[in-house]
C-alpha cells in the first residue's frame, strides 16, 4: 500500500509539511508507546498503590500469546485478543493467590512482584526457549517526500487514544468504574455504600494486567519476542505513571504527551542518548515541581487540597 502527495504541492511548502509531519509522527509514535506502556501500570500503581515490578512480564505474556496464537493460524486481531485475555487471566490468578495478601503492604508488593518477574522471565526461557519466531507488521507503509512510514505504527497513537477514551468511559460512566474510584478514595466508605471492595481490587488488578497484555499484543508485531523483553518497557512505564500522578484519567495522556515531546525533540536534536537521559531528568524535575504528578496538580488547581 503506497501513495504519495508529492505532486500536489509546490516544493518548499511540501518540504516543510513533510518535515512537520515527520516530527509529528515521531511525537505520536513516542506518545503511543508511553501511553501503552503506562496504562496497565497506571491502573495498578496509581489506583491501588501496588508497585508492580512484574508489569513488563505481563507485557511479555501478552506478546508471547499473541505471537503463538497468530502463528497457530488465528487472524491477528483475534490473536491480540487472546494475548490480552491471557495476561488478564494470569493477573486474575496471581491476584487471588498472592497480590491480595499485600494490599496494605506497599513495600512487600515490590519484593513479591520482583520475585514474580524473575519466575516469569526464566520460566518462559525454559518453557519456550530463548526466542520465538516473530510476526510481520501488518498494513505495509506509506511515503511522504523523502520519508516512508509504517502504517501500523501510524495507527498506534489512534489506538492509544481510543483506549484512553474507553477507560474514561469505564471509570466515569460504569458502575464498576464509580465503585472502583470510590474504593480507591476511601475503601471504608465505599464498603458502606455497598461496594464489594475485595472484588473491585481483584477486577482492577485483572484489568491492569490485561491492559499490559494488550500493550504486549499491540507491539508484538513490531518487536522481537524474547523472555527478557519486559525490561524494554518497565522504565518508560514508571516514568509515564509518575509524571501522570495518581489519577489515570486526568494525568496519563498529558504526561505521555509532555514526555513524548521532550524525548522526540531531544532525540531529534541531540541523539538517542540525550533523549533517554532527558526523559529521566524530566521525571526528577516533575517529581520535585509537581510532587503529585500532573493529575495532582490539576486537582489542586480545581480546588481540592
Amino acid at each position, binding site marked *: 500500500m503506497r501513495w504519495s502527495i508529492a505532486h500536489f504541492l509546490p516544493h518548499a511548502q511540501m518540504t516543510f509539511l513533510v518535515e512537520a509531519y515527520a516530527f509529528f509522527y515521531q511525537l505520536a509514535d513516542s506518545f503511543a508507546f508511553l501511553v501503552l506502556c503506562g496504562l496497565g501500570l497506571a491502573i495498578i500503581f496509581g489506583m491501588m498503590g501496588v508497585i508492580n515490578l512484574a508489569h513488563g512480564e505481563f507485557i511479555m505474556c501478552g506478546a508471547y500469546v499473541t505471537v503463538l496464537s497468530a502463528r497457530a493460524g488465528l487472524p491477528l486481531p483475534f490473536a491480540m485478543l487472546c494475548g490480552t485475555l491471557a495476561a488478564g487471566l494470569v493477573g486474575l490468578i496471581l491476584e487471588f493467590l498472592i497480590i491480595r495478601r499485600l494490599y496494605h503492604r506497599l513495600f512487600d508488593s515490590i519484593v513479591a512482584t520482583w520475585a514474580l518477574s524473575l519466575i516469569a522471565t526464566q520460566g518462559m526461557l525454559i518453557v519456550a526457549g530463548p526466542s520465538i519466531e516473530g510476526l510481520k507488521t501488518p498494513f505495509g507503509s506509506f511515503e511522504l517526500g523523502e520519508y516512508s512510514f509504517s502504517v501500523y505504527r501510524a495507527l498506534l497513537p489512534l489506538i492509544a487514544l481510543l483506549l484512553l477514551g474507553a477507560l474514561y468511559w469505564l471509570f466515569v460512566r460504569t458502575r464498576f468504574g464509580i465503585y472502583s474510584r470510590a474504593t480507591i478514595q476511601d475503601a471504608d466508605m465505599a464498603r458502606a455504600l455497598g461496594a464489594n471492595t475485595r472484588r473491585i481490587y481483584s477486577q482492577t488488578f485483572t484489568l491492569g494486567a490485561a491492559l499490559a497484555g494488550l500493550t504486549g499484543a499491540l507491539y508484538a508485531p513490531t518487536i522481537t519476542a524474547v523472555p527478557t523483553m519486559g525490561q524494554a518497557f518497565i522504565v518508560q512505564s514508571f516514568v509515564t505513571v509518575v509524571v501522570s500522578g495518581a489519577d489515570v484519567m486526568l494525568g496519563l495522556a498529558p504526561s505521555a504527551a509532555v514526555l513524548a515531546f521532550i524525548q522526540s525533540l531531544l532525540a531529534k536534536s541531540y541523539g538517542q542518548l540525550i533523549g533517554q537521559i532527558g526523559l529521566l531528568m524530566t521525571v526528577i524535575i516533575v517529581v520535585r515541581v509537581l510532587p503529585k504528578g500532573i493529575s495532582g496538580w490539576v486537582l489542586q488547581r*480545581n*480546588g*481540592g487540597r
Partner: protein
Amino acid sequence: MATILQTRGLKKYFGGLRAINGVDLVIEEGELRCLIGPNGAGKSTLFKLILGSYPPSAGAILFKGDDITTLQPHLRVQRGMSIKFQVPGIFLQLPVEQNLRIALQRPHRGAALDQALERLLELIDLGHQRSELAANLSHGQQQWLEIAMAVALQPAMLLLDEPTAGMSPEETFKTGELVKKLNASGMTIVVIEHDMAFVRQIAKRVTVLHFGEVFDDGSLDKIVRNEDVVRIYLGKV
C-alpha cells in the same frame, strides 16, 4: 497580662475555597480559650496555620510578640507551642513509654528525663501499660497519650484539637480536670471542642468560628444566649 498569640487578618484559601477569611485572634498569657463552630468553620485549619503546617494566603501571626508567619513548624514548637491533633497523632507501632521518651528527650536529659516520664505516666494513668504498643490502647487512652506528649514539651501555649472525641462521659470529665490543672499551672491552652458539657466544664472564654471568620466571642453564657450561634449550628445562617 501579656498577649501570647495574635493573628492579624489571617486568610487561607484552597483554590476557590476560603477556609480562613480574615481572622484576628488574641490569646492572653495563661488563658484557657475554647474555639467552637460547626463542621467546616475552619477551626482545624486555623490551628494548622498557627503551627505552620500551611503557609497563610495573607495576614500575620505573632507569638510572644515575634512575627512567626514564615517560621518553619518545628521552630515554632521550639519557641513554646505544642498541639494535640484532631486525629490521634501518636507513634502507633511504638510502646507507650517510647512515645513519651521521644517527646521528652528534646527538653530533658538523663535522670530528669526519667523523672518527667514517670510524672507523665502518672498524669495519664498509663504506668501499668508503659510497654504496650500505642496501637493497642483504647481510643481515650490514645488521646491522653497524645496530650501527654504535647505537654511533655512544657509549652507556653498548648493547642488541643478535639481532645475528648471518642471518650466516655467519665473520661471526658477526667480530661476536663486535666486541662484545668494544666491551665492552673500557668499553661496557656486553646481548645477546639464540640462537646458543650466539656466546654462548660473548662472554658472561661469562647470564640465562635463560622465560614472562616470570627462569628462571636465572649463568655460561654453570652455565647449561648446569642440566638445566631444556635442557628449556625442548626445550619440556618
